[in-house]
C-alpha cells in the first residue's frame, strides 16, 4: 500500500502483462491468438525440431544417471527448458552468433554439434574438441558460431554486444543472441551490456531464461521489477514477456526481435518464462530449498514444452507414434554408441598443456613443459 503520494513527473512500472503464448497446455492454438503471429513451419522442420527435443530429454536423463553412477564428474540438465533454446535456434540463421549460458546445448545440437563431441567434452578426453580444458557442459562450437561458455555469469553479455557492434562496423548481416538466467540480471555485466546495446542500437537479442531459481535463490529475492522484461525499458528498447515453454511463441518472438535487429531498430530483451525442473547442477539438491513446493513443480510439468509441441504435431498429423518410436530408438543408439566410444578414448596428451595458452607457444612455455616431463609424478587416483 502506497502511503506517500508521488509528485507529477513520477514514472512507475505497470504490472506485467500475461506472457505471449500461442499453444495452450494441451497443444491447441489459443483461440484468441492473432494468426499472423503463428509461425509457419514446414512439416520436415517440425519433425526436425521434435527430434531435437527428444535428443535433449534422452541425453539429460541418461547423463545425469551416469553422473549418479560416478562415471561422469559433473552434469547440468536443461529439462523443461528445451523450447526456449530450440525456438531461438530455429528462428535465427546459422550465420547468427550465439553466446550461450550453460542451458542451451539444444542450440549447439541444432547447428550440427554431434552427440560424440558433446559426450567427449563431458569426459574431457583426448577427443574432446576443447582438449579437456573446461568443466563438463561448457562447450565451444566455432563452426556453429556458438561461443565458448563462461562460468562467471553475465560476462558473455557485454561480449555479445561487442560482437553485435562489430557486425555493425563490418556491415555483416549478423544478429547476436545471448542467453542468461534471471539470476544474471543482478550483476553489473547485464546492465552494462544492455545499456551499451541500447545506445548503439546493436543487433542483439537478449534472452533471459527466467526459470524461477538461481541455484537456491528464488526470483523474488533477485529483483523488485514487475518482470525481467521491464528492465529493457530503462535502456531504451522493448522487452517481450514470452511463454518459454511454447516453442511457437519463442520462434515468433525471436523472429520479431531478429527482424528489428536486421532493420537497424536495435536490441530486444526476451524474457522466456520457464521453470528449472531439475537441480541447478548435479552438485545441487533442490529438495533442501524447494520443500513444500511440489505443486509448483507439478504445475510446470503440466506446461511441459515437449508434450505441448508433440500434441500439436500429432493433431496436425505430422507426428505419429511410429515416428516418435523411431526417433527414440535412433537417438538411444547414438547415445549408447557415443558412451561406448568414450571408453576407448584416452586422456588428453600432456603436450596439450602448453597449446592455445597463446596463439603460438612461447619459448618459456616449451621450456616449462620440457622441465615438467622430467619431474617425478604423483600417481593419479586412489591407488
Amino acid at each position, binding site marked *: 500500500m502506497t502511503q506517500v503520494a508521488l509528485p507529477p513527473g513520477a514514472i512507475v512500472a505497470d504490472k506485467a502483462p500475461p506472457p505471449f503464448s500461442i499453444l495452450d497446455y494441451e497443444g491447441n492454438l489459443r483461440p484468441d491468438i492473432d494468426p499472423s503471429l503463428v509461425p509457419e513451419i514446414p512439416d520436415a522442420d517440425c519433425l526436425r525440431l521434435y527430434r531435437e527435443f527428444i535428443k535433449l530429454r534422452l541425453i539429460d536423463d541418461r547423463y545425469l544417471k551416469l553422473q549418479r553412477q560416478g562415471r561422469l564428474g559433473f552434469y547440468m540438465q536443461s529439462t523443461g527448458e528445451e523450447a526456449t533454446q530450440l525456438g531461438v535456434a530455429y528462428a535465427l540463421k546459422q550465420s547468427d*552468433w550465439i*553466446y550461450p549460458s550453460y542451458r542451451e546445448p539444444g542450440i549447439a545440437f541444432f547447428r550440427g554439434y554431434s552427440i560424440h563431441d558433446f559426450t567427449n567434452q563431458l569426459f574431457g578426453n583426448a577427443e574432446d*574438441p*576443447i*582438449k579437456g*580444458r*573446461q568443466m563438463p557442459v*561448457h562447450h*565451444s*562450437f*566455432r563452426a556453429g558460431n556458438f*561461443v*565458448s561458455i*563462461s*562460468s*562467471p555469469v553475465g*560476462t558473455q*553479455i*557485454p*561480449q*555479445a*554486444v*561487442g*560482437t*553485435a*557492434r*562489430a*557486425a*555493425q*562496423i*563490418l556491415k555483416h548481416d*549478423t544478429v*547476436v543472441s545471448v542467453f542468461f538466467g534471471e539470476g544474471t540480471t543482478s550483476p*553489473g*555485466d547485464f546492465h*552494462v*551490456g544492455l*545499456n*551499451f546495446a541500447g*545506445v548503439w542500437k546493436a543487433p542483439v537479442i537478449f534472452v533471459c531464461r527466467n526459470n524461477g531459481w538461481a541455484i537456491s535463490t528464488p526470483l523474488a529475492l533477485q529483483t523488485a521489477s514487475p518482470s525481467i522484461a521491464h528492465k529493457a525499458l530503462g535502456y531504451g528498447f522493448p522487452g517481450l514477456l514470452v511463454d518459454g515453454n511454447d516453442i511457437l511463441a519463442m520462434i515468433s518472438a525471436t523472429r520479431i526481435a531478429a527482424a528489428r535487429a536486421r532493420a537497424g531498430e536495435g536490441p530486444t530483451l526476451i524474457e522466456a518464462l520457464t521453470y528449472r525442473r531439475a537441480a541447478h547442477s548435479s552438485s545441487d539438491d533442490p529438495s533442501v530449498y524447494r520443500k513444500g513446493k511440489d505443486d509448483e513443480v507439478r504445475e510446470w510439468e503440466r506446461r511441459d514444452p515437449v508434450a505441448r509441441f508433440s500434441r500439436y504435431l500429432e493433431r496436425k498429423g505430422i507426428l505419429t507414434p511410429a515416428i516418435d518410436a523411431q526417433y527414440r530408438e535412433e537417438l538411444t543408439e547414438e547415445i549408447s554408441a557415443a558412451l561406448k566410444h568414450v571408453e576407448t578414448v584416452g586422456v588428453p596428451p600432456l603436450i596439450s598443456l602448453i*597449446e*592455445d*595458452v*597463446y*596463439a*603460438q607457444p*612461447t*619459448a*618459456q612455455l616449451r621450456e616449462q613443459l620440457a622441465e615438467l616431463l622430467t619431474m617425478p609424478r604423483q600417481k593419479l587416483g586412489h591407488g
Partner: protein
Amino acid sequence: MPKMSFREALNQAMSEEMQRDPNVLLMGEEVGYYNGAYKVSQGMLARFGEKRVIDTPIAECGFVGIGVGAAMVGLRPIVELMTFNFSLVAIDQIINSAAKIHQMSAGQFKVPMVIRGAGGAAHQLGAQHSNSFEAVYCNTPGLKVVMPSTPADAKGLLKTSIRDDDPVVFIEAELLYGETGEVPEGEYLIPLGKGDIKRPGKDCTIVAYSKMVGLALQAAKELEKEGIDVEIVDPRTLRPLDEDLIFSSVRKTNRLVILQEATPHSSFGGEIAYRVQKHCFDDLDAPIERVASEDVPVPYALNLEAIVLPDVARVVAAVKRTLE
C-alpha cells in the same frame, strides 16, 4: 630521426596501424571527441571517423567486454582505459575471458586486442589513482604485458602489440606522456619479449622498466661521479620476459638491483629475483637488492607520497650496498 613526445609516439603507432589494417579500431571513454583523457588519441576521430574511434559509455567492464566480443569476430580492438586504476572494474573480463577464451576453446576463438592506458603514480592522486597493477596481469597466463619507457619503445611495442594475436595489457606511465625522444619513422616494430640495455656498465645491473628507467638513469649519473658504472636493463615486455638479457648482464656485473614503482609484496621484482638466484646463483657477489614503493597505499600529502615512492637516493644506496 624526428623527436616527439611519448603520447605522440603512441598516437602515431595507433594511426599507422589503423591506416594499415581496417580491422583495427580504438574505443574507450572520451577517446573520440575529447581526444582522450591524456590526449593520446588527438585527431584520430577526425581522421578515422566514428566507426573506428568509438566513444563508449563509462563502464570499463562494458567496453573491455565489448572489445573481447569484437575481437572474437575478427576485429582488432585497442581498448583505452582512462587509467589502469579502473581496470579492476573490468578484471573479470581481462583475466577470466580475454586471457582464457583461446585456451578454453582450444584455439577456436582468438582474442587479438590491446588493453592500454595510463598506470602508476602521478603527482598527488592518492591511493586509488596511483596503483601499479602489472604483477596482477603478469600472474595471468594468456596475457602479454608491456610497459615501455621511451617514446621510441612505445611506438615499436604498441605497433607489435596491435598485430599480436593474443590479448596484450599495455601500461603507459602517466608521467611519461610528455617526455620526448627520437622516434623512428614508419614501419618500426619491436618484438614482444625482447629487452633493451638502456645503459651499458660493468659494476652492477639495475633492472628497471617503464618510468623507473628514468630514475635508474639519474641514479647512474650520480654513481658515475663516484666511479661506479651501472648497467641498466629494461625488459620492456614483462610477459613474456627476456630473462636471458637479465642473466647475461648479471653474469657480467655479478650484482643486481631491481627497481620498481609497485609495492614489494608478491610483485614482479620478486619473480626477477627468483629467476636470477635460480640461474645465476654462482655469479652473484652480493644479495639481490630491491627498491620499490613502501608497502602502503600511496598517500596524497606531498611529503608522504614523496617518501613512499622510489627515489634516486635510494637507488644509489641500494647499488652501493651490493658493492660493499
